[in-house]
C-alpha cells in the first residue's frame, strides 16, 4: 500500500442577521450550521467521508446531526460504491451543495431543496447504498448514479424524516440519475433523475460565472386514495464574479396543492432574491440578500439577511 491512512477535517460555519416584514417576526442573529467535514483515505480503494453538523433549532437548542456518513469503495472511474447516509441525487443542488453556507453563492438553499427538518418537501437524505460512475460516452461525458435506501418516513408528520436505523416498511426508495458534462462546453452539466420525483437540470458553473436551472415534479400517491398529488417547482439562479464581488439573482417557485396530505403547509410560494456576495478573504464571505416571497391567499413577505460564512 502506497497511501497512508490520513484523516482530514475541514470546518464550515455561518452566522446570519436577518429580519422581515412578516407579522410577529423579529430581527435576530442566527447561528447557522457548524459543520465538521471529515475524510480519511482508509486504503487506496476505500475512503471514509462524514459531515457532522451542530445546529440550533427554533427552540434555541443546539443539537448534533450526522448529515452524511459514507464508506466509499472506488474500483475505477466507472464504478464507485458508497454505503451509509448520503444526499440523494435528486436534481443538481442536493449533491453539489451540502451543509456549508460558505460554498453556496446565496445565503440559503432554494425552497425546493430545504432540508427535511427545515420543512423541505424532498427526501434530501437517505440511508442505503449508492453506485456512481462514468458511462463510456466519449466527449459527451455521461455519468450515472443509482441509489437504494430506506426512503423518507411517511407514517406520521412528526416522525424523524430520515430513517437512520429503523425502516417503517420493507419497501425501499430507488433513485436513478443520469447527467452529462460535455467536453465541448466546459462547466455545463445537464441531467435527469427519477424517484416518483422527476427532476431535470441544466447548469453552467465556472469560477467567475454560474447559471443554475432546475425543475422538479413531485408526485404523491397516498395509500387508499386514487388521486395523485403533483407539485411542480423550479428555480433559476445566475451570478457573475467581479473581483471580490459577486452579485446574484434567484427566482424560485413551488406550488403544492392545499389538499396535499404529506406537506400541507408549503402551498404556493414564489418570488425573487437579489444579493451580493463579497469575499473578505479566501475563507470568509459576506452576503447581503433581499428576498420577496409571495404566497397563496397571504400577504407577501420581504426579508433582508446579512450572512457571514466561512471555512476553516
Amino acid at each position, binding site marked *: 500500500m*502506497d497511501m497512508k491512512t490520513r484523516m482530514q477535517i*475541514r470546518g464550515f460555519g455561518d452566522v446570519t442577521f436577518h429580519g422581515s416584514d412578516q407579522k410577529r417576526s423579529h430581527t435576530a442573529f442566527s447561528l447557522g450550521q457548524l459543520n465538521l467535514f471529515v*475524510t480519511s483515505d482508509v486504503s487506496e480503494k476505500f475512503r471514509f467521508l462524514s459531515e457532522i453538523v451542530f445546529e440550533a433549532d427554533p427552540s434555541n437548542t443546539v443539537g448534533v446531526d450526522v448529515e452524511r456518513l459514507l464508506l466509499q469503495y472506488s474500483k475505477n472511474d466507472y464504478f464507485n460504491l458508497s454505503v451509509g447516509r448520503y444526499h440523494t441525487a435528486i436534481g443538481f443542488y442536493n449533491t453539489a451543495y451540502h451543509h456549508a453556507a460558505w460554498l453556496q453563492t446565496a445565503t440559503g438553499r432554494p425552497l425546493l431543496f430545504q432540508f427535511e427538518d427545515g420543512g423541505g418537501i424532498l427526501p434530501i437524505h437517505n440511508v442505503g447504498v449508492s453506485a456512481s460512475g462514468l458511462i463510456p460516452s466519449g466527449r459527451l461525458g455521461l455519468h450515472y448514479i443509482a441509489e437504494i435506501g430506506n426512503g423518507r418516513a411517511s407514517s406520521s408528520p412528526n416522525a424523524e424524516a430520515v430513517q437512520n436505523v429503523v425502516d417503517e416498511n420493507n419497501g425501499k426508495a430507488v433513485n436513478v440519475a443520469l447527467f452529462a458534462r460535455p467536453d465541448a462546453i466546459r462547466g455545463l452539466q445537464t441531467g435527469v433523475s427519477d424517484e416518483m420525483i422527476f427532476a431535470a437540470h441544466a447548469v453552467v458553473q465556472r469560477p467567475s460565472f454560474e447559471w443554475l436551472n432546475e425543475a422538479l415534479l413531485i408526485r404523491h400517491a397516498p395509500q387508499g386514495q386514487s388521486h395523485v398529488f403533483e407539485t411542480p417547482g423550479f428555480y433559476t439562479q445566475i451570478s457573475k464574479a467581479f473581483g471580490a464581488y459577486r452579485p446574484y439573482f434567484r427566482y424560485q417557485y413551488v406550488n403544492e396543492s392545499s389538499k396535499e396530505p404529506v406537506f400541507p403547509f408549503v402551498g404556493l410560494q414564489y418570488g425573487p432574491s437579489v444579493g451580493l456576495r463579497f469575499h473578505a478573504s*479566501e475563507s470568509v464571505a459576506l452576503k447581503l440578500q433581499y428576498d420577496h416571497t409571495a404566497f397563496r391567499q397571504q400577504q407577501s413577505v420581504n426579508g433582508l439577511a446579512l450572512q457571514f460564512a466561512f471555512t476553516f
Partner: protein
Amino acid sequence: MPRIRILFVLSVLVVVLAIRLVATGPESLLAAPASGGDQALAIIVNQANPVENCSFEELRKIFLGERSHWPNGRRITLVMLDPAQPERKVILREIYAMSEKDLNNHFIQGVFTGNILAAPKTLATPADVRKFVFNVPGAIGYVSATEVDPSVKTLRIDGRLPDDKEYRLRLQPRSNRP
C-alpha cells in the same frame, strides 16, 4: 611559443566540436539555446505506469480531479509544486484556466461533494516532485523538462514530448511565443 599555445587551444576546440557533432547531430550546433522563457514543462508519471500518451483534454480532467484512476485501476495521485513556483503558474494558466483562489475553491468543493477523491499534494521543489512520482505508482506531476531524469517517465501530450515545437506547456504564454 604563443603560436603553439593558440594552435593547442584551437585543436582542443575542434576536438570538442567534433565530439558534440558526432554525439548529437548537426542540428545541435545550429539550434539556439532555449531561452528561459520558452522552457517546456514535462508531465511526469511513475516508470511502472503503462500510459505513454494522453490527450490534453484527458490531462485537464486528471488535473481537475474528474478522473481519479488510471486505465489499470491504479488511483491517480496528483502532485503540484507550491504556489511560488513558475511551473505552477503554467499549469494554472494552460490546464486549469483558474486563479489560485479558484483552484483552492474547486478542490474544497469537489472533495466536499465527493466528486473528487483527494486534493493535490503540494511539494516545494522539482526534486521533491520527482522523488514522489518515483515512489508512488499512481502519481502524476510536472517539472521543468530540464529537471527530468530517468527515475520518472515523461508523458506525451497529444503525442508530443516537451522538445516538440508544438508542445503546449511552456513557461512563455502561447500569445507571446514567436
